[in-house]
């Protein structure tokens, strides 16, 4: 009864994770291949789907808590799914932001060849994938590795920003395009932060330990 329902809930959040992951992948691929249809798909089809699924998952969690009054690891798992659900929905919004900027950029000449951004996106997606996998497999080691890789993505962001600044200074006509590129890298960085959140939550459900405030800063600039 309870475990059947809990398993259904887990399936649902994994499905949501996969969808969100594919949105990031599509938005970057759409940018690189100048694929307008793909970018529109993220905005018009995928994002509304994630909103619906978020509400459904929320309700499933609340119903389970109200009806079965779970305790200990069962309770932590459901609370974790609630938080992860919230994180995934925000990640979907960020993928939408990336697609929007990509739509702007693909109609115009490139400021510079895309080198670091695809690498940053790849690393970010890997972090998200691993954070979800660590939840599925109950693997705190993998979850910890996600938290540690946050620095790599931050470094990419700084690097990209520095480079864009030099372009903007030397040729002000690039400013608007450069700002869109900056927006994409900023959203990727925020996605990596949220993947880190998920990793921290996994460590919490598996080990019952809070690592958030010790090692990792809570604040995340928008």
């Amino acid at each position: 009864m309870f475990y059947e329902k809990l398993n259904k809930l887990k399936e649902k959040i994994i499905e949501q994770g996969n969808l969100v992951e594919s949105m990031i992948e599509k938005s970057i691929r759409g940018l690189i291949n100048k694929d307008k249809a793909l970018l529109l798909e993220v905005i018009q089809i995928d994002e509304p789907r994630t909103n619906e699924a978020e509400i459904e998952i929320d309700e499933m969690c609340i119903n389970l808590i109200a009806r079965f009054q779970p305790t200990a690891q069962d309770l932590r798992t459901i609370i974790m799914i609630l938080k992860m659900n919230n994180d995934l929905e925000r990640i979907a919004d960020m993928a939408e932001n990336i697609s929007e900027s990509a739509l702007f950029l693909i109609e115009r000449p490139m400021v510079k060849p895309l080198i670091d951004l695809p690498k940053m996106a790849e690393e970010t997606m890997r972090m998200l994938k691993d954070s979800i996998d660590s939840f599925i497999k109950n693997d705190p080691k993998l979850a910890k590795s996600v938290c540690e890789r946050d620095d790599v993505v931050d470094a990419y962001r700084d690097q990209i920003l520095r480079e864009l600044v030099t372009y903007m200074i030397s040729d002000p006509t690039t400013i608007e395009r450069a700002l869109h590129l900056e927006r994409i890298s900023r959203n990727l960085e925020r996605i990596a932060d949220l993947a880190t959140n998920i990793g921290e939550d996994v460590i919490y459900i598996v080990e019952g330990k809070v690592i958030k405030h010790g090692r990792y800063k809570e604040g995340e600039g928008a």
Partner: protein
Amino acid sequence: MSDIVLKTENLTASYDEHIVVKNVNLSIIRNKITAIMGPSGCGKTTLIRCFNRMHELSPKAKVEGKVLLIENSNEIIDVYSVDPMLVRRKIGMVFQKPNPFPTMSIYENVIAGYILNGIKLKKSEADEIVEESLKKVSLWDEVKDRLRKKGTFLSGGQQQRLCIARALAMKPDIILLDEPTSALDPVATAKIEELIEQLKDTVTIVIVTHNVGQAGRISDYVAFMYLGELVEYGPTDVIFTRPSHEKTEEFLTGKIG
């Protein structure tokens, strides 16, 4: 519209002019588990005893209003205008305290409904009904070697499963369970709850419980009664997370009851 199996219309029940169930309109959904919950004395037992005409067996008891048993869209039985024995065959009942018939063997207990109704079964037919019913309540493996022993030798949980088998043997449309686990330990309770879940594919279940946890765990729909009235009725997910009546809220949060 959902598939309704039993419907009450302005159902009112009393003992010696004292009204204990007031004007209840309730539609029970087929092949679902409906929990009737509410504080002690609010009329839960009386309500379900009206469904299969057991209420009228109490002295000075009276019933007003209608109960309709909807077997299918072209066969609707007005419960109070047919033979009560027929109604009780179609709407079985399991009580709070397990009550296997003490003079009967396990085997006879399962087919007691037939024996008491004077329905003759061929030996092969009876064997089949006994085996099938005991299997449905997961009791077959535990008792198949001692079917001729008295049912009263079984544990409380086994006795209750035997009583459920006895009700199932009549192939009813609905089984009414009146706090079927209140006399059982947690392990036996969990087994019965699991069993009830499995049974809903075969039969509609109405279970009276004053245990909120139990209603939450097993029911698809919940009816909340208070002082003889049906206060609120709906899907368990809805009632348990956002009830619309203050009394329901108070009951669910343990402030009354």
